[in-house]
């Protein structure tokens, strides 16, 4: 344990001790009160290591790619949690773990208080039904030889109780209607649709089983600018209509800000900062978040002229061999000797622990400071 952690609050309050679901708590940004919500999903110390092997005849493990290396977060009911970070930081791996497409190396995923990683058989199937994934690439994630009706209705094969045989066609047509596609398209094939329409097909399929949680991995990244807004608006409408909770993964920080209530920032398999949308975007305290935000250009030359950019040196190190202490230290302009020695925990930094306001949120940095990297100097 980090000695500096003493006195600083950890950001996970509540917990399973009481048996009941925990409450995701966060400071209210000025103006927009952030209401804590009942957590529908709690991820604790999640780890996924992929073995690195060597040798052709006798394969032996020589190390591990630490794709996800100890991540905890909570998702409130009806809430959108955005997850951002650079390519390779582990976002998709988190998505696959949370949706049960891969088994974690360690850690737990609590759905309504129950650890999904320990379930099997019918209990697991029931949980899986409630946590669905929408994938990034509308071009490759749909089977080209299946009709739209078969694709959207496929989840009913595994869960026939949701739609008995005779009702499937009608259910599928309803779903197409819900996502703004013509229900008469049921017999068409994916190549007959545009990228935006294919993404709608993917969303309709994700909705088929009436899940409570949708994990969307880069759902709009492959879309044209003019079509991206249509899909973002659709996802927001569906969230209200069906009371969905989203984990929304994207590398586009502007889209994430638009859609998210809370945002987590990942670097090399770890969350380095988490908070409400305005805490992260207007009052970030972690140097990586600050650099990431400052690198995003804003479509407004006047605003651009006022900004100063933090340009990071170098690139993300390999997740097979992350730096000691703080993973970000090889690119951090504030790094001190302590950063190589001690890993900063994801807690509210001590200096902000007793402060009111937006800096009071978890940030894994020994020298956390407030800075607004978007607005003018």
């Amino acid at each position, binding site marked *: 344990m980090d000695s500096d952690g003493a006195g600083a609050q950890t950001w996970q309050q509540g917990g399973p001790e009481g048996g009941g679901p925990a409450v995701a708590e966060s400071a209210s940004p000025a103006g927009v009160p952030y209401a804590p919500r009942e957590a529908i999903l709690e991820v604790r110390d999640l780890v996924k290591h992929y073995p690195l092997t060597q040798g052709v005849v006798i394969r032996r493990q020589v190390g591990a790619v630490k794709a996800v290396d100890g991540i905890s977060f909570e998702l409130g009911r009806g809430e959108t949690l955005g997850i951002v970070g650079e390519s390779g930081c582990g976002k998709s791996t988190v998505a696959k773990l949370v949706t049960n497409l891969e088994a974690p190396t360690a850690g737990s995923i609590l759905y309504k208080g129950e650890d999904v990683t320990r379930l099997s058989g019918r209990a697991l199937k029931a949980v899986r039904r409630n946590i669905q994934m929408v994938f990034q690439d509308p071009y490759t994630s749909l089977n080209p030889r299946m009709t739209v009706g078969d694709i959207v209705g496929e989840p009913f094969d595994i869960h026939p109780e949701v739609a008995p045989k005779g009702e499937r066609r009608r259910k599928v047509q309803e779903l197409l209607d819900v996502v703004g596609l013509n229900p008469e398209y049921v017999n068409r094939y994916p190549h007959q649709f545009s990228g935006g*329409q294919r993404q709608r097909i993917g969303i309709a399929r994700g909705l088929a089983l009436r899940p409570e949680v949708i994990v969307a991995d880069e759902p709009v990244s492959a879309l044209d600018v003019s079509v991206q807004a249509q899909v973002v608006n659709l996802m927001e409408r569906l969230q209200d209509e069906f009371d969905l909770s989203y984990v929304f993964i994207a590398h586009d920080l502007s889209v994430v800000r638009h859609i998210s209530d809370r945002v987590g920032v990942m670097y090399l398999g770890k969350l380095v900062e988490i908070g409400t949308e305005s805490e992260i975007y207007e009052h970030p305290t972690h140097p990586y978040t600050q650099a990431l935000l400052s690198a995003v250009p804003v479509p407004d*030359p006047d605003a651009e002229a006022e900004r100063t950019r933090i340009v990071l040196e170098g690139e993300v190190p390999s997740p097979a061999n992350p730096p000691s202490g703080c993973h970000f230290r090889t690119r951090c302009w504030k790094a001190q000797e302590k950063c190589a020695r001690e890993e900063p925990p994801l807690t509210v930094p001590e200096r902000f622990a007793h402060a009111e306001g937006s800096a009071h949120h978890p940030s894994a940095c020994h020298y956390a400071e407030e800075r607004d990297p978007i607005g003018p100097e």
Partner: protein
Amino acid sequence: MTQTQAQSPPPSSSGPSPLLQVRDLHVEFHTRDGVADAVNGVSFGVEAGETLAVLGESGSGKSVTAQAVMGILDIPPGRITGGEILFEGRDLLKTPAEERRRIRGARMAMIFQDALSSLNPVLSVGYQLGEMFRVHRGTSRKESRIKAVELMERVRIPAARARANDYPHQFSGGMRQRIMIAMALALEPQLIIADEPTTALDVTVQAQVMGLLADLQREYRMGLILITHDLGVVADVADRIAVMYAGRIVETAPVGELYRAPAHPYTKGLLDSIPRLDQKGQQLNAIKGLPPSLLRIPSGCSFHPRCPVARAVCRADEPPLYEVGTGRASACHFWKELLDGQ
């Protein structure tokens, strides 16, 4: 009302003719399903030391325009069916192939989105950079290698001397893109065309690469055509913007004016539909519908099926590129109402 029709952009007010002047360029592709009209009468100019951003969504004809200028279009299936490409005063479309090859690399160079597929995977990076000097300048092997390492240092590759022996796949995406920039700069060309140079990169690396490109452009006083679909990238680095839709330029303007007061409904639609990092917006104003198929471009104004202010005339008459201000043009019949309303 003075609506001068500016089919080709107004000549620059003073000084010599622009470095590059494209006039009324037409390119089509013969496909199994019919003829795709990829570029339909594109005109623009670039001056020395100027950055022109070409902004447009996927399929709007940006890359094809760039390939036509570079002389690297796939012919067939592509075909240039009309227009002029004047570079330093001469029409490249009338220039013999041998001569164009010499111009390419030496006087104009291109940076592609996907550096990995544009570099040779079996030759070291140092060898490929040196080759530029050996082939175009007849420089000796040893001298070329020294120049290659110098170039790698210019684009800030750490430990350049040692890394010159490495192969492209041994570099990260950002470093490969910097090597592409080094390759383009090698012979100090007058014009560089960068086609989505940072689209495949993460934002932090994008900022490094764009910063480098802007520094070098200033230093060498090159003309730069920056092709992108990202309205943010453009705001920071471009002097002027040309917005493309369905193979046409629908608006051109100095960068500040285009963002402050767009003179075309498509440009306005794009600006309204993207979420902004510095604003927690309300609902996004999406543009309805989809970009058209180039096999069946709508009649009249090609944007009319999606345009929120379209009227009957828009379906019938194709709007010319009206001059709407100093150095500004818009291909909308109702540009004036749009500008007055803002």
